């Protein structure tokens, strides 16, 4: 790959897309993104019983932010999801997962043995899995965003 | 034979290691540093002597230190044979320390702290080797000696020294790893133990050809004994400062080498086993070859230290030859010669160093008339040389006497001729030195009058020369100890 094409990738898409002629893209994106996110949440929430789960839902959630960045530019996108936020989300998502595991330990079960969490083992299992899926979803979404941003970032400073 | 448990042998080993630390700490203050060396040497000798009565009583002093692996122990055992080497080495360390102080200070050598530290380590390891209760322990101390003396050989840090030291290391470490170690592994596999037992441990455990392989590996692996063709390290090591050459290459290193050979021959294989397979004859042939060739090579050296080095190679093989005869007198000679040769050869090396300190001369051809200026030194040299040639009343005579008796006992007339020939050769390469020193006229322009080396150099060498003579007259005392060794290894078949 030539040097120029690399630069095209790392070029900030925001600079020329924010002009008026991209009004269609921006409008469509604004309409679509909430629905994409809603779908992402749906997939995450149904992971325990139906097809889907934290990974898939997380990717969809992440994709919604990536669409936003593609349309509005990296700088604009990074205002919405700052580096700090995405880093925090990466960790906290996984921590939710790990924390639930630890909770199970503290409740007297094995690691990730959800049914000991509540008096009703069935409900406990449901909630436990849901919590884990949410954690995974958050992490996956944040990782997707970070990866994308890091890849398109132009490093003038170093 | 009874055995008593005691930590004394361990202390004998550790004394000089403690000294290493003290020497290192007080490196800034030469007087204190050297005081530690002397104190350690005296203490060590004291400890060794304190064990002597028990050994003379027929007791073995044992000290089990640690089990590395099942069957691999670090353990010490003091028996008559071990204590002979220990006595010799620890006594000579005292004298060498004095000599080294004089020598190193006169020449204003660098890195003296390292020098004394490595010296002390080497001595510890020598004690350890002397008191080793099994092959593994012996091997460990053998290697420690190699590594600690490497630093001493490389002491000058110039290209020649580094090169010599490297050759030294490659030969000693290389052979020990390539031959000694596998021999040990094989012994362990077949005999199931590595302990030294007076009549050997290998008898009846393996087929003959395996025994032969192990034997050859052992002999090749113990390069410190200087058997050809593994003697090359010895002349190479002569680049070291003279006290090092003296103690280590006339006493500690090479004596540990032949000590190991004798140990292995008598306490691993056993007299009976070797006689049965006929390996004694093989070893005797190798040793005879070394004796003759090394003597001839000694003839051709003009550098005094090199001549002494080749003389050492040849004398070491006397010890090996003697034990290879596998007869009581032969073994007597072998054990005795370890001590006798130590005294004689250390005197000679001291003299070489003294000449260097006083006149900076290294070559025999430059030493014309030096005997007039350094009468004490050269007189001591003469005594040492006589001991090498085996003229009474010097210690060398006793051991050679037993050696000749041994050849007759073993019915090996050919060996007798080897001994006689080599005696002539010995005389041939020592006589010119004495002649040059006393009877040749010094070259013009050199000052007259006495120009001895400092007292700290001369006194030790005179002491050892006197010691050589004493060994002759006190031989019944020493022989008592030697006979205990012989009695144990001959399995009581000898009175």
């Amino acid at each position, binding site marked *: 790959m030539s040097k120029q094409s690399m630069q095209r990738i790392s070029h900030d898409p925001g600079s020329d897309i924010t002009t008026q002629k991209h009004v269609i893209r921006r409008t469509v994106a604004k309409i679509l993104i909430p629905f994409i996110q809603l779908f992402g949440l749906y997939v995450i929430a149904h992971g325990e019983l139906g097809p889907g789960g934290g990974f898939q839902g997380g990717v969809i959630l992440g994709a919604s932010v990536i669409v936003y960045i593609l349309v509005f530019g990296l700088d604009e996108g990074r205002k919405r999801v700052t580096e700090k936020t995405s880093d925090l989300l990466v960790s906290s998502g996984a921590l939710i997962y790990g924390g639930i595991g630890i909770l199970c330990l503290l409740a007297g079960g094995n*690691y990730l043995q959800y049914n000991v969490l509540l008096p009703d083992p069935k409900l406990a299992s449901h909630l436990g899995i849901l919590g884990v899926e949410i954690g995974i979803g958050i992490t996956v979404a944040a990782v997707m965003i970070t990866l994308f941003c890091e890849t398109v970032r132009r490093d003038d400073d170093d | 034979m009874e055995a008593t448990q005691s930590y004394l042998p361990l202390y004998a080993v550790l004394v000089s290691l403690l000294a290493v630390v003290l020497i290192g700490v007080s490196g800034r203050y030469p007087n204190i540093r050297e005081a530690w060396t002397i104190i350690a040497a005296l203490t060590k000798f004291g400890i060794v002597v304190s064990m002597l009565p028990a050994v003379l009583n027929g007791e073995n002093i044992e000290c089990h230190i640690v089990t590395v692996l*099942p069957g691999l122990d670090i353990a010490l055992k003091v028996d008559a044979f071990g204590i002979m080497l220990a006595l010799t080495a620890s006594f000579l360390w005292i004298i060498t320390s004095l000599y080294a102080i004089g020598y190193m200070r006169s020449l204003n050598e660098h890195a003296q702290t390292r020098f004394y530290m490595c010296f002390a380590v080497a001595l510890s390891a020598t004690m350890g080797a002397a008191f080793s209760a099994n092959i593994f322990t012996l091997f460990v101390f053998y290697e420690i000696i190699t590594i600690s003396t490497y630093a001493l050989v490389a002491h000058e840090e110039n290209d020649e020294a580094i090169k010599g030291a490297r050759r030294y290391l490659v030969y000693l470490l290389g052979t020990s790893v390539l031959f000694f170690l596998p021999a040990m592994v094989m012994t362990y596999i077949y005999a199931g133990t590595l302990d030294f037992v007076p009549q050997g441990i290998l008898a009846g455990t393996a087929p003959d050809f395996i025994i032969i392989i192990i034997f050859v590996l052992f002999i090749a692996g113990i390069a410190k004994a200087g058997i050809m063709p593994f003697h090359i390290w010895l002349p190479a090591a002569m680049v070291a400062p003279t006290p090092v050459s003296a103690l280590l290459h006339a006493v500690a290193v090479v004596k540990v080498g032949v000590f190991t050979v004798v140990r292995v021959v008598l306490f691993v294989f056993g007299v009976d086993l070797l006689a049965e397979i006929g390996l004694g004859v093989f070893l005797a042939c190798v040793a005879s070859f070394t004796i003759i060739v090394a003597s001839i090579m000694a003839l051709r050296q003009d550098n005094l230290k090199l001549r002494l080095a080749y003389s050492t190679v040849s004398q070491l093989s006397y010890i090996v030859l003697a034990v290879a005869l596998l007869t009581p007198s032969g073994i007597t000679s072998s054990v005795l010669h370890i001590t006798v040769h130590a005294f004689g050869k250390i005197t000679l090396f001291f003299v070489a160093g003294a000449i260097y300190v006083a006149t900076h001369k290294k070559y025999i051809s430059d030493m014309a008339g030096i005997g007039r200026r350094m009468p004490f030194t050269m007189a001591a040299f003469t005594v040492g040389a006589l001991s090498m040639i085996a003229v009474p009343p010097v210690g060398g005579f006793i051991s050679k006497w037993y050696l000749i008796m041994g050849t007759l006992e073993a019915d090996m007339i050919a060996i007798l001729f080897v001994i006689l020939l080599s005696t002539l050769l010995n005389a041939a390469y020592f006589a010119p030195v004495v002649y040059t020193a006393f009877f040749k006229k010094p070259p013009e322009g050199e000052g007259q009058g006495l120009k001895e080396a400092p007292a700290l150099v001369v006194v030790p060498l005179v002491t050892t020369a006197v010691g050589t003579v004493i060994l002759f007259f006190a031989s019944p005392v020493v022989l008592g100890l030697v006979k205990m060794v012989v009695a144990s290894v001959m399995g009581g078949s000898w009175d």
Partner: protein
Amino acid sequence: MIKHLPILLIVVPLLSALIIPVAGRINRALSWYIATIATGICFVISLLLLQTVLKEGSISYWLGGWEPPMGIEYVIDYLSIFVVIIVAFIAFMVSIYSRKSVELEIDEDRISVFYAVYLLFITGLMGIVVTGDIFNLYVFLEITSIAGYALIALGKKRQALMAGFKYVVMGTIGATFILLGIGYLYLMTGTLNIAELSQMLPQLYHTNAVLTAFALFAVGLALKIALFPLHTWLPNAYTYAPSAISAAMAATATKVGAYALIRILFTVFGVSFLTFGDLNLAHIFLFFSVVAILAGSILALSQTDIKKMLAYSSVGQIGYIVMGISLLSITGLVGSLLHILNHALMKGGLFLVVGAVVYKVGITNIEGYKGLGKKMPISMAAFTIGALSMIGVPLTVGFVSKWYLAVASLEVGMWYLIPVILISSVLTAVYFWRVIDNIYFKTDDEGDPGHGHGHGHGEERVKPDDAPAWMLVPTVTVAVLCIVFGILAYAPVSLAEKAAVILLR
């Protein structure tokens, strides 16, 4: 809580790895504390586990309370605990060491990333050793590898990037082969539980699918442990990685790979599989191990960079480990396990010293070690111990494992392996002696005209200027252990023997 120790071994570093990026935002210095505490806890856990295993035999832990083979099982037996302790100890030592080393070698804003990834790396290693599920093993193998790729690429020089990339490619190919092998085993047995696999496979020894699976595992694992000639990723990776990582990887990553090899060869396939067909499959490994031992030593001889020399020497040492495995005898396996421990200690220690020299002097070429014996006496003493141990001098750990390997090869009648071991020992002596020579017997002439060949009391004038205590303490600890386990070899041997007996049953 004792019951949950196996999972804590993984969860503690994992969660700490996740906390670090957050904590690092609050205060950068926190990341080091968290990493060190986490690895320290791991070490304590591993000691407690050792106590339990010695008392009760193997421990099984059902993840999520699901009964195996349905759920994932974590098993700690003698073999696992042996390796767990090594990994936990080295991880702890390297963490302590990193405080100063990483400060110098890693950009400031990447330090918390470094510790986070480092803990992930440890998590993966622990996981491989603890898990009783073969697919889980693959996942942990990849966690380790991915973290490893990133850690290597963090090296200061730009060559580190290429080294990291090469490792990515080779490592992924290896992992994919392993994945494929797992697929074949699953195809044949329908289970992923190691214990169950080992019961079901003997009936299927004759099938080609099992043989294929074996071949895939063999190649994949050989890539992961860098068995010659699949070692090409290793030298550059170790050379250009940050010093602390060179030490950690040399001491743990390939060792855990060797663990995986032992686990899969002996537990999953079983020793009788190796000799089942016409061809003794172990002989293939034996052949390559011999080649590796010799080639690694010879290649190490020609290096001028000390890190590269140590890396090639690792290639040779891996050969020793594989040799012990492929002798298929208890003594051989004990030798192999011991060498896993011993090589971790000695090579880890050596790399730690190299890192200390980088910290103080900033060089890695062997020429630059001239005169360091006086400048950095403690570090160099540790180096000397490590070097002697590598050579296999008695009373150091290197001797013990070589002894076992030599005895084992004689026991099975392969006397021709002895010269291989000996020749490589001699070669090892030669290439280490070049360094020792520089350290103690040569002086840096340009450096300071004040000292050098001057007679008199020159040595007193060079001021010792050793590495900071944070680096010295772990280095010296590791070096001392090289001697302690060389003398008190009985302790690791007894554990390794227990493990070997079970594996070869």
